[in-house]
């Protein structure tokens, strides 16, 4: 067999049985009457080629090679002689050509099954069901506004309100820094003096403000609002907060 042709045509084999089938089909022989010597030679040749092509030859292929050689020599040797000598832990649990044929037939059967399954798969690829990977179905109930699997707009609103409420109550634990809330309150008021249109919320912070400064400034802001010194408003629900001196 010229290696060049094989180089082009060498398919990938799922395993030793697949390779054996390929060789049997190529040789156009009856599966019940395999010329073991010939097939074994071709099998070994293919393994060598695979190695030459730097294809990874899985150990199963080598085990099958050992099995084939064992069957071949058994056919040549008188029965029972050499059994022990040939008994190889690395060979498959296949002793005779008949056993090999049985295993090949079984494998062939499941190859046919796989082909059937492929046909089912192809048919099923053509129908589409709803993808529910992302999220739940939309259940709309006008009485509860929009209710979607238990979460409603009012719930979002309440969460937001709770957050605002918590903000008023809960003292934020921040590391003592160079700032105190009182100082920042004074600073805020002086910043806002003379700003008729107020200042944007983010404009109150220096570019380099750290987390604690931002939090403290925010607390100072809330405190000033509570004391009625400041008002904060939004032009639209997701617009910038604007801070004004009252």
């Amino acid at each position, binding site marked *: 067999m010229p290696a060049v042709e094989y180089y082009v045509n060498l398919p990938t084999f799922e395993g030793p049985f697949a390779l054996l089938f390929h060789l049997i089909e190529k040789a156009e022989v009856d599966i019940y009457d395999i010329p073991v010597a010939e097939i074994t030679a071709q099998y070994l040749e293919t393994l060598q080629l695979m190695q030459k092509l730097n294809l990874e030859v899985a150990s199963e292929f080598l085990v099958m090679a050992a099995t084939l050689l064992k069957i071949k020599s058994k056919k040549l040797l008188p029965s029972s002689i050499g059994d022990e000598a040939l008994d190889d832990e690395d060979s498959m649990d296949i002793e005779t050509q008949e056993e090999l044929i049985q295993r090949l037939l079984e494998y062939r059967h499941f190859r046919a099954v796989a082909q059937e399954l492929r046909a089912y798969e192809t048919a099923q690829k053509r129908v*589409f*069901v*709803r*993808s529910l*990977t*992302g*999220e*739940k*179905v*939309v*259940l*709309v*109930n*006008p*009485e509860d*506004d*929009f*209710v*979607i*699997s*238990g*979460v409603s*707009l*009012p*719930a*979002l*609103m309440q*969460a*937001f*309100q*709770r*957050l*605002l409420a918590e*903000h*008023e109550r*809960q003292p*934020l634990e921040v590391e003592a820094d160079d700032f105190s809330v009182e100082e920042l309150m004074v600073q805020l008021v002086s910043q806002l003096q003379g700003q008729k249109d107020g200042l944007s919320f983010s404009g109150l912070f220096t*570019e*380099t403000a750290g*987390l604690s400064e*931002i*939090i403290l400034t*925010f607390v100072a*802001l*809330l405190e000033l*609002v509570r004391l009625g010194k400041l*008002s*904060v*408003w*939004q032009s639209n*629900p*997701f617009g910038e*907060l604007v801070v004004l001196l009252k």
Partner: protein
Amino acid sequence: MEIKPLVEALLFVAEEPLPPAKIAEIIGAETKDVRETLKLLQQEYASSEHGLQVMEIAKGYQFSTKPDLSPVIEKLFKGEKSYTLSQAALETLGIIAYRQPVTRVDIETIRGVKVEGVMNTLQRRRFIRTVGRKDAPGRPILYGTSKEFLKYFGLKDLSELPRLTDNEEKQF
């Protein structure tokens, strides 16, 4: 070619509301014709014979079950792992929805806790998305809500978000 079966099938399989223009592009039809077909489907499914309806949401169309069937439909999901968002996730989403575009630090400042975990969850569920970077030191990432967010809460667009009451606004 009759486009109604195709429009019906596309609405059914789409993972999100489909805008008429997108449907038109996929099936190779005029957007005008797709709109007409959508209206027709809406009418047909509005019949009391059907348990489904074609709804317009987040600038697209999608199938949903009819609202009056929800008590029965919910029985199907009884005992199933609920998909409701955690309180932390709701709060964070609320902040992002109202304050977008917003940085993670902004959110942490308001909530007073680290929000990295929650933000990851929200991004994984595609409720939020990155919308750019703030022109500030470190150029922090700015977040906004997504179309997924609108869908989850059944909003057509952000203007449908509940307004803060006067009282709440003053608290800020």
